[in-house]
């Protein structure tokens, strides 16, 4: 019983881990990009489950990138240590920002987090001695000397780690706390949920994951710059993925990430300069016409057909 329940997960993990055996370097590179964005999409959704719309993914991603690269270049630690440092820096900054901004909700939180990427970029640009200013900094060598198979496994580990954290959120009291805050904050408070504490906690954890993703990405591509590391793509793509797949669950953003990740490669080849337009359009269309996303719609459809069949 137990075995069959976990079988799909085991199979999926095995398939993902063995992917390099039957793919070339090109597909591995595609998968690396896809998994990074998938990680961001999932972390964004984990915050959304508390009813808070954060636009800070690009900001914390870039912050983690810079923290990881600067520690690596200036102190000379192991790349993994520097990536972890990127996560810690992003998490701590999110904690401080959250303590201030999570006292208000809705648009105040959303827009303040939207401003973060620009703010971090300005601050980093203004310490050119350390950060290289507008030029940014380059690594002498990328991680694993650019071996795509090893890089793929590293990024896969990051994505799996995020999926595990997300499932921990889904299977413990955290899910009930976040859902109650999203559904009705007054009820949550009156039922004993320390709303502020949970919100700051989730904001810090999800931002730390974005920082880890940034640190990993920076090591994979070997550079940081204000333009590149804080690019709006690191906000736009994850949002489109999570919304398309379906929010408020682990598997929605994962499915959305896989679908859009594959699609984005195709689009990049078809319309090299404007493929990002499609993501914006996906956000608009899904928000208006498919608020449950693919997974939510499938789930609702399954439930409906199931219930009617049960009634007959």
């Amino acid at each position: 019983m137990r075995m069959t329940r976990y079988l799909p997960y085991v199979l999926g993990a095995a398939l993902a881990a063995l992917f390099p055996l039957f793919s070339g370097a090109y597909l591995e590179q595609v998968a690396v990009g896809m998994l990074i964005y998938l990680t961001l999409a999932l972390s964004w959704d984990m915050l959304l489950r508390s009813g808070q719309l954060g636009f800070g993914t690009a900001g914390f991603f870039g912050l983690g990138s810079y923290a990881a690269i600067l520690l690596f270049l200036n102190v000379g630690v192991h790349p993994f240590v520097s990536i972890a440092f990127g996560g810690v820096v992003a998490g701590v900054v999110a904690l401080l920002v959250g303590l201030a901004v999570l006292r208000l909700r809705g648009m105040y939180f959303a827009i303040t987090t939207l401003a973060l990427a620009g703010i971090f970029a300005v601050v980093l640009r203004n310490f050119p001695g350390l950060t290289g200013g507008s030029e940014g900094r380059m690594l002498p060598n990328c991680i694993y000397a650019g071996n795509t198979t090893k890089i793929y496994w590293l990024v896969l580990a990051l994505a799996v780690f995020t999926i595990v954290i997300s499932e921990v959120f889904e299977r413990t009291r955290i899910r009930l706390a976040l859902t109650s805050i999203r559904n009705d904050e007054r009820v949550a408070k009156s039922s004993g949920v320390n709303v502020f504490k949970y919100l700051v906690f989730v904001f810090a954890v999800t931002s730390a994951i974005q920082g880890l993703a940034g640190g990993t990405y920076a090591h994979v591509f070997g550079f940081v710059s204000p333009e590149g590391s804080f690019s709006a793509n690191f906000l736009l793509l994850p949002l489109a993925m999570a919304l398309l797949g379906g929010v408020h669950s682990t598997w929605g953003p994962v499915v959305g990430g896989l679908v859009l990740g594959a699609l984005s490669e195709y689009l990049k080849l078809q319309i090299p300069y404007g493929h990002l337009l499609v993501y914006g359009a996906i956000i608009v269309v899904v928000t208006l016409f498919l608020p449950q996303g693919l997974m939510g719609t499938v789930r609702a459809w399954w439930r409906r057909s199931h219930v009617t069949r049960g009634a007959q």
Partner: protein
Amino acid sequence: MAVLRTEALERRFGGLVAVHDLTFELAENEILGIIGPNGAGKTTAINAISGLYMPTAGRIFLGEEDITYSPPHVRCHLGIGRTFQLVHPLVDLTARENIMVGALFGQHRSLRQARKTAEEIAAQLGLERIDRSVSDLTVLEIKKLEIGRALASDPKVLFLDEVMAGLNSDETKAALDAVRGIRDQGVAICVVEHVMSVIRDLTDRVIVLDGGTIIAEGPYSKVSADPRVIAAYLGEEE
């Protein structure tokens, strides 16, 4: 010994005084009714006591403890439970999970304990379809659900804000029995209600609010004969 006590409680919104000079006690095992015309400050009083609004003056004691400025979740931990005037179920959770929220966060129980507590409370309240989504439940079931959620946090004092509104007479009877059952477990209960027969049948004592303050207090039979109350409330439309 009073379970809950307020002293000259006041809550203003800008220039508007919603509640003022509200002093009352709730004894152990008591069912207290709060009545008054619309806008008399009943719900504001509950919000101030449960912590959703901070009082602008006065004090609130739960037993010996001064909770005047405690945040709402702390008041819940200390033993204040409440329901809301219009039903506020947590729509993305099942019925069981709704009740579990109270058990998990009101008293720090484990998931397993909380699941069991939810089952016990549901059985006590006669809530059967516990694993259904909230959207499948009837009004009576949702009301029971909300009482159950408040109950799951082990309150010493339970505020019920118009739980009988919208129920038919059979359902009201079922709800009355449920409330009495809760009292028999040793919970002091404070009901805000518009349905006078409910107040008459259920309460040991009634306080009447008008214009944010108490204008009469005593058993229902005495209060309902008070000319000031009749003028303020019963004469209005009832």
